[in-house]
């Protein structure tokens, strides 16, 4: 570098002394050094910032789904289109004893196309009759056909496609706040006093005159994203079967991979002699860890599903992921065992312990936290793994949970299932943007799951490093 500088400045050389040139060269090199250090720091910051921005978008898209929810009947199904949904309130006005059904305001869609904006402005806060295309049930939207000011102030007859209520405007959209419907609950066999103020779904009889003759009345329960089954409607879809599936598959994966991986690791480190076989196994395991996950899926499809006929249930999924995680567990086990110094083993042998006793009372306990760290990281990868489960044909629409019964305690292993990442993939693949919100929410749950597993592993590793000093 100093030579180059001197070459470049050959003409000036006469004017400069040797030492100022050197000082300038050193300064330049130090500056470049500093620039590089800042580049490195900047790139770290850039990578983490991009990740933070992306996660921010995920939270922005998905957080509303996590907190919001919807009402369903006790059997878990949504109210049908023949039912009206609302709050049951006692009618205390003008001395009559009776009940009212108070419905939530509906947002009017396409109002600007069908209806004249100027006329709507005049009707704000007045009573209107809205003729709508869609029957207003549990949906929060109505598609307007026409809208008229109310002429006679009394209810005459109930029509499903006509909502009478107050028109109002919220932000850019038009809303209608329906008048409470007077109900006649004499035919219904429920203690309506206990239902006061509660959300209910009612169906009405043929008699459409007021008050409405209620045929059935069912209480509704609030159901959030975590407790809901998948659904064709994005707002009603949830991740209950996906969470249950993920947990069950993870349990199977853990039970199969961790003991097996530890056993293999112990054998390779403590029992296997250094010969061609152990060398081959060593290379083999390192290569297996690099096999793309989709190849594991193909192996599972060809061998487990078709050759061994294990079906496409939770057992196959758990086994596939267990095989995928196995190299990670084996390598973690070996590393943890290798960190134990030889004098521990020798001391144990000197006391007369057999090899198994040495492993059981010294090697395994001392390496356990290292093994656990590696296993947790492996399992967190299994939780987020999607591709191999798609190839074995994990279904995406699972509106049921695996059955548990004492007479057939292992039947759930054969049950069809879905897991969080597959449910998320399914929602991403839909063109409807409402489902993308579901996908973001599922992604948040998945991230919390995997990142918390990773955090546990990191904490475990740090504690281990501080604690053990040979």
């Amino acid at each position: 570098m100093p030579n180059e500088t001197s070459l470049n400045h050959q003409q000036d050389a006469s004017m400069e002394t040797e030492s100022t040139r050197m000082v300038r060269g050193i300064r330049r090199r130090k500056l470049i050094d500093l620039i590089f250090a800042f580049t490195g720091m900047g790139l770290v910051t850039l990578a983490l910032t991009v990740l933070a921005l992306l996660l921010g978008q995920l939270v922005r898209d998905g957080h509303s789904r996590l907190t919001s929810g919807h009402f369903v009947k006790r059997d878990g199904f949504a109210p049908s289109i023949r039912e009206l949904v609302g709050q049951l309130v006692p009618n205390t006005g003008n001395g009559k004893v009776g009940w009212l059904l108070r419905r939530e305001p509906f947002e009017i869609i396409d109002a600007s196309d069908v209806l004249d904006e100027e006329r709507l402005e005049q009707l704000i806060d007045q009573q209107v009759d809205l003729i709508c295309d869609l029957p207003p049930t549990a949906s929060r939207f109505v598609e307007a056909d026409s809208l008229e000011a109310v002429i006679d102030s009394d209810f005459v007859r109930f029509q499903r496609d006509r909502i009478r209520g107050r028109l109002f405007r919220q932000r850019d959209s038009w809303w209608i706040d329906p008048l409470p419907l007077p109900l006649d609950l004499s035919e219904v066999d429920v203690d309506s006093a206990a239902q006061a103020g509660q959300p209910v779904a009612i169906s009405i009889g043929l008699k459409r005159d007021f008050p409405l003759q209620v045929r059935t009345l069912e209480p509704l329960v609030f159901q959030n994203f975590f407790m809901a089954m998948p659904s064709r409607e994005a707002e009603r879809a949830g991740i209950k079967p996906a969470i249950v599936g993920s947990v069950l598959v993870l349990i199977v994966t853990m039970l199969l991979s961790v003991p097996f991986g530890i056993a293999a690791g112990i054998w390779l480190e403590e029992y296997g002699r250094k010969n061609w076989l152990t060398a081959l196994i060593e290379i083999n395991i390192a290569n297996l860890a690099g096999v793309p996950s989709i190849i594991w899926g193909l192996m599972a499809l060809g061998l487990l599903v078709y050759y061994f006929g294990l079906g496409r249930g939770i057992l196959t999924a758990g086994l596939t992921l267990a095989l995928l995680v196995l190299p990670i567990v084996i390598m973690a086990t070996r590393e943890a065992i290798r960190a134990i110094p030889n004098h521990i083993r020798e001391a144990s042998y000197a006391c007369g312990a057999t090899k198994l006793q040495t492993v059981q009372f010294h090697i395994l306990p001392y390496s356990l936290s290292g093994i656990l760290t590696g296993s947790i990281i492996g399992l967190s990868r299994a939780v987020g793994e999607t591709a191999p489960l798609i190839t074995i044909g994990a279904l995406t629409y699972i509106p049921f949970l695996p059955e548990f019964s004492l007479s057939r305690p292992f039947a759930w292993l054969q049950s069809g299932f879905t897991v969080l990442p597959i449910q998320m993939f399914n929602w991403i693949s839909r063109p409807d943007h409402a489902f993308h919100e579901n996908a973001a929410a599922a992604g948040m749950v998945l991230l919390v799951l995997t990142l918390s597993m990773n955090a546990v592993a990191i904490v475990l590793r740090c504690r281990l490093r501080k604690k053990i000093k040979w």
Partner: protein
Amino acid sequence: MLRRGIRILGRSPFELFVEALLCLAGVSSIVITLGIVGILLYESSGFFSKVSVWEFVSGTEWTPLFADAKYGILPLVCGTIITTFVALFVAIPMGTIIAIYLSEYASHSVREIVKPALELLSAVPTVVYGYFALLAVTPFLQTFVPNLPAFNMLGPGLVMGLMIIPYVSSLSEDAMRAIPMYIREGSYAMGATKLQTAIKVVVPSAISGITAAFILGISRALGETMIVAIGAGLQPSFTIDPREPAATLTAYIVQVSLGDLPHGGIGYQSIFAAGLTLLLITLGFNIAGYILRKRFREAY
């Protein structure tokens, strides 16, 4: 008395039994490998009994599920390679510079924080990255890349690059830190700066470990499935323009698996042929990396 004596001296049957069990677990990894290679070869042989190998490796159209089926793997290989290139374009420079920074410049405490933080990048599930590719990065790119379709190879490639950074940086850094201090000190004593030392002394000495890190990154990018299946589309096309949509080998396997193909048909066998191709490409890179590593290995 005698039996007890024997027990103390020799191994008890129980010990032998446990050892046999452990040995079985150890050897099973070879069985698993044989299972993978076996099933891929078996199903692929069914595929190649119907399709000539030459058509497979030279054809430029891949339409195995159409009535007029064509079995040229090149479009899928091309999609795989292009997305991998885009990813490496991000991951290798960034990963290497970060590794040099962490190993040569950063203080101990900075390294202890940054390393686990970077590992978060690879801990995020790939399906979540797929969401980012389709719904965050591609819309962002569309603001300054004109006529970028919703499905393209650029967005998923960039996201994949982000995901791979820790694979490259972490292993490279380990390799650089394994270089003994006296080698650096020799360089400093000659008046070299940290950067000169890093580039002219540390990196060449650690090159075998750095190559291993690159190879790991390449393998991850080649085999990555969900990001490209979500973000790059499922339509095989023979193009090298990263702005266009294309299917990769892995995305094709996902696409077929999502449908319900009968077992034993040519569509079913074709995903194993695609899988075998992917495995061979990955293996090729790994062998190349192994040879490079052997050639450049320097022991201290």
